[in-house]
């Protein structure tokens, strides 16, 4: 049952081979057994999950079930879910129970899916290893001494360890794709604006995008059908016709033009990762694709640009966490300024404070033009690189991350080394493009390697098709860690 695809689970539920309550209980039991070792979930609400499962069974009995009805889905703890503690991985929100549902949560509820629990994450989604979480690091299910990646590390570990059927993540600079790669699962960051950000706690508003994480591309397509869609409560949500993301899964790949950016295969890329990615490209050629070398010359600037823009937006987005209305307030303070200072000093972790300080600095009078404005200009150049590239290819492929999962604590003291692990993913967010990662082998340390597929705007269905055809021909996506 734990190895079934979402489609198989849905069929089993609709055929009454298993009830949603039984399925949910199976997962809850597995979580109870394995989560203490992995720390993938920060909040469970067994009662609420089972109540949803009961309601889903009623829907199934009534014959009005949809694709996701009755299926247990884990939610990254960045989404507000009514009645659920919603922490965003921070002490600041340790005591915050959301009074409303995020759009994504609403969509799953409407579809009759089960909220199985809230998954661990880097604090306010700031991190690439899940080590910045106030609730402790998540362990990589393939090797408990290694990180699962971040910031959607809890989600990635939960999917890899079969602690949920599928799960949600968010991706600001690689936070879906990098942990998907490091945990050997599939993950999709849609085009900016395809999934509503309403109710998703903001890190960097112009980059944040929610997406699905699961065991295979076919599962991601079903998840996308639930998550995507226009929402008038998010002004950056795009008004587009509803689409079926599974519609092109079975198309052959004959004639597919794959662009390989030479900058993605240069210095800094681990040789084991390069080998696995090259093998995947060879597989694609067998499937009928052709390969063309392209160049994304401004990619090298994406990390500095990102670490100006994302902290700038974050410094402002996180101002609301001031101890006045909700969340953490320091127990002792002398006056208003002292309350702000102590609450924020005690409520935020080191990485969050670092980014708030960077962001405050780059927006300050006298520095704004040199940093923020300059970064916005380069952001447009980076996006323009992709426009040029797509004149010559249909999808772009390369590694998701320069290395496989590193050891817990290995990069803790060097933020810049940590930031570099997102070198291949960040440009995609800056351009607002869709990107995904699928498993394509293992590195020298037997840890999973991710293949990144970058599509043109709104090409999610095509990308899922490209991933699915590969997954029909290979079995990397069905390898599971021994736990």
């Amino acid at each position, binding site marked *: 049952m734990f190895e079934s695809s979402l489609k198989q689970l849905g069929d089993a539920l609709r055929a009454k081979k298993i009830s949603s309550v039984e399925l949910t209980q199976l997962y809850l039991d597995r979580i109870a057994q394995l989560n203490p070792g992995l720390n993938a979930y920060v909040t469970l609400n067994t009662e609420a999950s089972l109540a949803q499962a009961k309601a889903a069974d009623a829907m199934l009995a009534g014959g009005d079930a949809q694709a996701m009805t009755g299926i247990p889905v884990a939610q990254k703890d960045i989404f*507000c879910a009514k009645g659920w503690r919603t922490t965003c991985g921070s002490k600041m929100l340790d005591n*915050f129970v959301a009074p409303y549902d995020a759009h994504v949560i609403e969509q799953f509820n409407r579809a009759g899916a089960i909220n199985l629990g809230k998954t661990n994450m880097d604090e306010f989604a700031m991190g690439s290893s899940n080590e910045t979480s106030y609730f402790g690091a998540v362990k990589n299910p393939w090797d408990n001494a290694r990180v699962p990646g971040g910031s959607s590390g809890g989600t990635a570990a939960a999917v890899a360890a079969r602690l949920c059927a599928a799960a949600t993540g968010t991706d600001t600079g690689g936070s879906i794709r990098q942990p998907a790669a490091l945990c050997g699962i599939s993950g999709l960051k849609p085009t900016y604006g395809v999934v509503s950000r309403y109710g998703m706690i903001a890190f960097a*508003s*112009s980059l944040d995008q929610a997406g699905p994480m699961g065991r295979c591309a076919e599962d991601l397509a079903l998840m996308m059908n639930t998550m995507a869609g226009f929402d008038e409560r998010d*002004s*950056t949500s795009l008004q587009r016709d509803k689409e079926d993301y599974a519609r092109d899964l079975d198309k052959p790949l004959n004639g597919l033009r794959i662009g390989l950016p030479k900058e993605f295969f240069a210095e800094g890329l681990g040789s084991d990762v390069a080998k696995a990615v090259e093998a995947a490209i060879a597989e694609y050629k067998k499937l009928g694709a052709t390969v063309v070398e392209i160049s994304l010359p401004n990619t090298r600037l994406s990390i500095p640009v990102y670490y100006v823009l994302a902290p700038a937006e974050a410094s*402002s987005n996180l101002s*609301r966490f001031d101890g006045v*209305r909700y969340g953490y307030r320091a127990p002792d303070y002398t006056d*208003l300024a002292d309350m702000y200072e102590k609450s924020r000093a005690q409520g935020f972790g080191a990485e969050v404070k670092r980014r708030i300080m960077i962001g405050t600095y780059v927006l300050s009078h006298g520095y704004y033009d040199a940093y923020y404005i300059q970064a916005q200009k380069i952001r447009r150049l980076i996006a323009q690189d992709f426009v040029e590239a797509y004149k010559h290819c249909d999808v772009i492929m390369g590694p998701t991350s320069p290395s496989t999962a590193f050891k817990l604590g290995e990069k803790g003291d060097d933020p810049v080394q940590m930031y570099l692990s997102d070198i291949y993913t960040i440009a995609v967010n800056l351009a607002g493009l869709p990107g995904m990662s699928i498993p394509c082998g293992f590195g020298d340390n037997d840890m999973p390697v991710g293949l990144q597929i970058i599509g043109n705007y709104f090409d999610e269905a095509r990308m899922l098709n490209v991933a699915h055809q590969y997954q029909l021909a290979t079995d990397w996506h069905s390898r599971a860690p021994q736990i």
Partner: protein
Amino acid sequence: MQWEIVIGLEVHAQLSTNTKIFSGASTAFGAEPNTQADAVSLALPGVLPVLNKGAVERAIKFGLATGAHIAPRSVFARKNYFYPDLPKGYQISQFDLPVVGQGALTIQVEPLSGNAKPYEKTVRITRAHLEEDAGKSLHADFHGMTGIDLNRAGTPLLEIVSEPDMRSAAEAVAYAKALHTLVRWIGICDGNMQEGSFRCDVNVSVRKPGGELGTRREIKNLNSFKFMQQAIDYEVQWQIDTIENGGKVQQATILFNPDTGETRAMRSKEDAHDYRYFPDPDLLPLEISPEWIEQMRATLPELPQTKQARYVNEFGLSAYDASVLTSSREMADFFEAALGDAAAQAKICANWIIGEVSAQLNRDGLDMAQCPITAQQLGGMLARIADGTISNSGAKDVFRTMWAEGGDADAIIETKGLKQVSDSGAIEALVDEIIAANADKVAEYRSGKDKLFGFFVGLAMKASKGKANPAQLNDILKQKLAG
């Protein structure tokens, strides 16, 4: 030494939308604290702003009414600072790209010194931009603590910034009043100053005529024209005294205390915030099409200045009368409804409204909207004056009754028997009797004592109980006395 006063105004007009500028919460005044604070007003994690179209429409109307450029593309920016009644830790405002560009307002200035003549002046408006209001901090009822009421947070404001074009308190007050009239006239603001719907910040400096601009101090939050006058007078004298005593004016934000009539510095320039403005990534740039502007133009009423000119040209009213009648839309509407199509009666109609009606309203402490007699009722009475049914003194009687008891002119004339006698036969008979009874005086008159004419008029009026048509009576008397 002679000093020139330089004044510029920043006015915050609360726009008369039912809901807030970025959420669906009510903007009604006076509700229990925080009952109008929805998730967006509280800045809960994950909420997003959605722009209220009604606020934009009102900004467009203002721009059109002041002949300003409406920006086809304007941008919302975040103004970052911490304060307990600012729930997000930033205010959404507009910074370098406001919705309304440069415009102008022509004002009638009545100098305060008795012998100077009223004059016209055009004040340039630098810009007007949309922004949200903050909440309120309540200090009174909470011992050692501060209460926060977020009902007002997110209320739409139009901040209207003038050039430093005003040269006296009288000009500043005239401009503020004209603006106050205009925003109510075009229906974008209720203008209620007690409730804070129209708040003025006044920048004051002094300089030697024609010299460099002096250092300004900003008087914040004046909510009455009287206080504005007093505050400016005090501040100007303070600045002149300071300079003449060898001191220097320091840039500062100051408050006016109505109880003492003095201004006092709140914070100096050294304490000025660095607001770290940057474009709000949660909101797309505001785009306004020419079609939208034309739609708004079509909804604009005839503006006060246009009306004034028309009253002078079409009805032959004096500039003064025209400006009084257009001091509010209610007044102008009342005038036009009372006048109907009797254009020839414009002057007398104006006299009644500016005279009797305004005086009675003043006495009873009412405003035009609360006037106990309708424009139609007044018009009916004016028609009876015009057709000679009642005399002017009879009309005063009718008016008093109408005001106190209601009813139409015709009914009042009937019941009170105020109809004047215009039957020439009846008047002739009456005149004949008087001539017969006063042979001596007639003789005196005929021998050249013209002054006696008034004596005969008096007798005749008395005999007719005041109802004789005066013009007719004059003619007949003259004729008969001439023998």
